[in-house]
């Protein structure tokens, strides 16, 4: 019954403990390089906020749902930006997809993330799913299944900070912070000050995980 808790170690980067303040330049561990720093992440999110408003014609019906763990603070940041631009309160919450994963049998049972659906529910809303990295597409597939059990949105859209390619399902993002061509031998790690003490997107060599079958679907950090 030992479940894995999503910890920083699981990102496979071995980043040393971050300092409490957000440093100007990312704290990059050996063998990895920063492809986005804090300012670039901020600019990408601001752009996505504008695009959401544009695509949803003012964002009146928008509900943002972050996918744990790092999609949740990203959804919060997007909500704040939209509020600042349009003076509009955007309902936002989180949607844990663990129970809908198609690879549960490949690893020990995982601890669950939070699901918090904003008051008012999802019926007839334009739900924007928010995650850090889009990779195989399996997480988004699971999120779509989860949404179906929670209500009937008018439309579902997808916002990601990084799209690293290598899709295994017919899924694409509506809003992308940065397209990042990668090889399967690389891993993409998103660090956010809320969860990791600093903002950065790191590219490094992928590490095989103990006990995990060698499949891209297992790597949450690149799995949106």
């Amino acid at each position, binding site marked *: *019954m*030992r*479940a894995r808790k999503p910890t920083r170690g699981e990102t496979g980067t071995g980043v040393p403990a971050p300092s409490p303040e957000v440093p100007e330049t990312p704290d990059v561990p050996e063998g990895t390089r920063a492809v986005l720093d804090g300012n670039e992440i901020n600019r990408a999110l601001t752009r996505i906020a504008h695009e959401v408003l544009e695509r949803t014609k003012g964002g009146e019906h928008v509900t943002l749902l972050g996918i744990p763990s790092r999609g949740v603070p990203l959804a919060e940041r997007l909500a704040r930006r939209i509020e600042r631009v349009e003076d509009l309160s955007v309902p936002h919450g989180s949607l*844990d997809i663990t*129970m*809908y994963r198609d690879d*549960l*049998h*490949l*690893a*020990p*049972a*995982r*601890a*669950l*993330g*939070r*699901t918090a659906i904003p008051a008012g529910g999802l019926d007839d809303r334009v739900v924007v799913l928010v995650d850090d990295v889009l990779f195989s597409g399996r997480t988004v597939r699971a999120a779509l*299944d989860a949404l*179906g*059990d*929670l*209500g009937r949105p008018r439309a579902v859209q997808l916002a990601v900070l990084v799209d690293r390619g290598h899709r295994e399902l017919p899924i694409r993002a509506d809003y992308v912070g940065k397209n990042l061509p990668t090889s399967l031998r690389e891993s993409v790690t998103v660090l956010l000050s809320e969860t990791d003490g600093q903002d950065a997107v790191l590219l490094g060599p992928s590490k095989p995980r103990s*006990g995990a079958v060698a499949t891209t679907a297992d790597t949450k950090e690149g799995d949106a």
Partner: protein
Amino acid sequence: MRHLLSTGDLSRDEATLILDTAAELAQVGDRSVKKLPTLRGRTVVNLFYEDSTRTRTSFELAAKRLSADVINFSAKGSSVSKGESLKDTALTLQAMGADAVVIRHSASGAAHRLAHWVDGSVLNAGDGTHEHPTQALLDAYTMRDRLGRLDGLRVAVVGDILHSRVARSNVLLLTTLGAHVTLVAPPTLLPVSVHTWPCEVSYDLDEVLPKSDVVMMLRVQAERMRDSFFPSVREYSRNYGLDGERLGRMPSDAIVMHPGPMVRGMEISAEVADSPRCTVTEQVANGVSLRMAVLYLLLGGS
């Protein structure tokens, strides 16, 4: 962990993980679709040698909410009543591909024995007078939900401790989770070695009540009276029953729990049973989420 046989096997982290998972899964009961696909294609067998509609239904609902296939295999109307041994029944279930067996049995240790004979997970749903781990877990969940913590909580367990699997599981689990347990019963209904258990013991309910955040009343079967464990129902009730007056002497935010089924007029008065401070129906509701959590953690992974 492959099985859930005793709460004594759970570390504090493991027990907390079960409670946290149950807290997340509790939301499922409020959704329009009260079902998760997690255990699709898995088979859970409810092997009940004792009648217990409430526990069996709770496990069945929990498994179905996780999309598992559920087979109810009860002693009545099956080959068990024709004298098939537990081992042969286990091998039959094994051959049918059961991923988990939930077993309720009148013999202490039946779940342990079963775990020797099947490859799947075994969940102890009550074995004789030994343990009832999911009951203790849902009790702990209910306490945490109502009172916000377990660490340092003062819990009195009152009644037939000697024959209670609920008491055994609760003493082990609550101690692991940092609560302080006091067992309250007439000396005849306490195990002889109770002084070696990690808890306090008292024969005086009135002395314990004002110092308790939780009072858990256990069912006392009237047939114990015939075996001279106590002289009469009236005397038992007078000394160890919880009535409105005694409820009034408890701290104002203290709660009353009961694993059910209650014997009103014996260990608990109707007034207390129907009081908003009595968590019996919450315990039942929490039981489903808690059992979902256990099934998920045992069967959800590799």
